[in-house]
């Protein structure tokens, strides 16, 4: 049975201020480059990361937020895994948040459905009071 072995790119970024979004994008770009992702896939990954990072800034206002990036490998391909975690208030209705068109506070909503379309795997764990973790994986071809 083939098992993924992840090697960290050694980057963990605290998401506290708006300027951190640039760092998030740069880190994801570098990781995507290393994993050999093509330009369109790189753009997808960076955009998804920007959406998820922005979620943390917007919604986990008093929570600590962070992103960790790792390279992942399976037998035939290499990819990038990014984990976005925060200790914020959590998402009250996860199912609703994952539906298109969900909107809170006049913004375009949590951007989760959009981000999900851009990556190969997206997992959300969240509950009111226990924060939110979003894991995304984008594989190279």
């Amino acid at each position, binding site marked *: 049975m083939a098992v993924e072995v992840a090697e960290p790119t050694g980057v963990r970024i605290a998401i506290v201020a708006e300027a951190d979004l640039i760092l998030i994008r740069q880190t994801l770009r570098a990781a995507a480059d290393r994993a050999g992702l093509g330009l*369109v896939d790189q753009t997808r990954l960076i*955009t998804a990361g*920007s959406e998820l990072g922005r979620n943390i800034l917007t919604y986990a206002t008093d929570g600590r937020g962070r992103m960790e990036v790792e390279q992942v490998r399976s037998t035939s391909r290499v990819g990038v895994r990014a984990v976005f975690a925060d200790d914020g208030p959590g998402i009250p209705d996860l199912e609703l948040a994952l539906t298109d068109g969900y909107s809170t506070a006049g913004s375009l909503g949590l951007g989760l459905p959009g981000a999900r379309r851009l990556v190969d795997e997206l997992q959300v764990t969240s509950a009111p009071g226990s924060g939110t973790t979003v894991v995304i994986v984008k594989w190279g071809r």
Partner: protein
Amino acid sequence: MSDTQVPIMQIGDTLLTSLQGDLDDTTVMSIEERLTGEVARRNPTGVLIDVSGLTMIDSFIARVLARMVGMVRLLGSSVAVVGIQPAVAITLVELGVPMGHLDTALNAEQGLALLKRLQADGR
């Protein structure tokens, strides 16, 4: 990148501004402010927003672009967004941000032609 580096140029009766590189939110919004200020001041017939230097447009930048376009139209100028890169175009569509309200062209040259057509149409 600081917003003071972002040029707003005048070509004939058209204003042209370029968004480039990796922009943070503050810079994007100050570009928006500067552009609307210039449009109000100079009252051009048309405005071109060149995004060929952007390697990514997320929902925030898309919203600001839509706002900029809306403001410029309200101020009476035609406006087009030019230079959306292939990878960015695909990603925007997949992300699901509605962009149908924008008039777009491939580059500044086609953008100027588009502005003329819009003006002939009363837009």
